[in-house]
């Protein structure tokens, strides 16, 4: 799925790096709960798992004010045009996290003569990070946000934790 964001008019290396650092550390997700994963997405926003530590706790209801779409749940065929429309109405730069097996590949609801769901969010919108799980645990969602930050800033924020010798 080709990405739908074009390059800006002025592109300095340093300027882009500074902007990316700012963008990565204040991702505003769109409240977009489709099914069961929405509950885990709410749980990650709450006090215990606290997405606020990574700057992503402001869940904006409108796509106009958000730059990260977490597709949390099954995309049914009736819902697909709305998903694409919401993605297009988000201002650039924007990213998409496909949360849960349903958003990755249809998950438990995909089999040969399935008539109701779109097997995977990347068939209709470009996806940046995938979180496996049904539903994924809140820790997995935090790791996805950190992976996305790594992808945006191209700096190893998460790798520091991974390479620690236990």
């Amino acid at each position, binding site marked *: 799925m080709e990405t739908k964001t074009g390059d800006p008019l002025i592109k300095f290396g340093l300027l882009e790096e500074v902007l990316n650092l700012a963008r990565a550390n204040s991702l505003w997700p769109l409240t977009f*709960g489709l099914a*069961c994963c929405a509950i885990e997405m*709410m*749980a990650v926003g709450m006090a215990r798992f606290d997405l606020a530590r990574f700057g992503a706790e402001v869940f904006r209801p409108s796509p106009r004010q958000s730059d990260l779409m977490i597709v949390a749940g099954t995309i*049914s065929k009736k819902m697909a045009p709305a998903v694409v429309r919401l993605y297009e109405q988000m201002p650039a730069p924007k990213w998409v996290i496909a949360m849960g097996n349903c958003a990755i590949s249809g998950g438990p609801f995909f089999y040969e003569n399935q008539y109701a769901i779109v097997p995977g969010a990347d068939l209709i919108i470009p996806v940046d990070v995938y979180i496996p799980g049904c539903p994924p645990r809140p820790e997995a969602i935090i790791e996805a946000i950190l992976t996305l930050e790594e992808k945006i800033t191209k700096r190893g924020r998460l790798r520091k934790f991974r390479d620690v010798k236990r």
Partner: protein
Amino acid sequence: MIELGIEEKTYTLNLGPQHPSTHGVLRVLLEMDGEYITKAEPVIGYGHRGHEHMAENRNYHQFLPNMGRVDYLHALAYNQGYCMAVEKLIGVTVPERGEYIRVILSELNRLTSHLLWFGAYLLDLGAFTPIMYCFDDREHILDLLDRITGSRLTYCFYRFGGVPQDLDDEFITGVRAFIKRLRSRWPDYDNLVTKNVIFINRTKDVGVISKDQCVKYGLTGPTLRGSGIPYDIRKSEPYSAYPAFDFTIPIGDQGDIFDRYIVRLQEMEQSLRIIEQALDKLPNGPIMAEKVPKRLKPAEGEVYQAVETARGEFGCYIVSQGGIKPYRIKLRVPSFGNLSILPEIAVDTLVADLVAILGSVDVVIPEIDR
């Protein structure tokens, strides 16, 4: 050119699939005259995943995980309803300890569902703090359930004939500590919300459902009990180990939003009482029936098993024609009926009241769309 003086004055608005107050992907097509709603038509189907079609080409064991994903807020009650329906078909009885464990876990799951409803509903009304309180309590239960069942939300724990894993002492002491802790939190919930004058003004005498509307629309659960009809499957059609416990069925009197809210709060207290009694009287013995056939081939026939979930009566209707796959499974879900009354009670209300009514009916969308 803007045509002035257009004849039809109603404004059509989508309270659409992506909206914070619809708790999922429900779309309510509103026709409004200024702030007042003249017609509200819920459009559902955005969360339709085809559970009943899947049931027809899966054998009985393969359909168990689906049960945790129909109503993911009270998944264990759906597991219980489906397992009991199949047990009736194949004639297996669950030993007493297994039934007690099922009741304890289902009631704990009912608490997580009501707590989440409490937080999300007040978030719709604009209060941001309560959701922090109730998610904090909810995480405690999820840890306890996670220890035993292994998952946090979409449980697939009950098996035909009982429960695969026994409770250990750490779980039991954890539950007792949790009960004491949650009971100490009720005053916080009351002071924070029930006595809050804004909350009272927004919910008193709003969205009133009368008794005969309940009968006509087939409402069940707290939405029905808010209107004063004490119909709770655990009491009126006792199943599993519920006859062994004494608990009351809280009912409202006027059927407005405030009564439905009070009913759910008191129900949480009753669930705590049930869990306490179940823990005290937990018999020892087997937790799984002995001879449960591995490949189920139930005899021809049909069965309907009703179970009380957090939102109302879940009825599992299975038609079997002797094969290893069910011929037809119909899931009678409570929110389908509870939501069908919205067009009637939403007329002439303000949009803000519609959001309050929708929250008080506590719908879970993939449960409606199946």
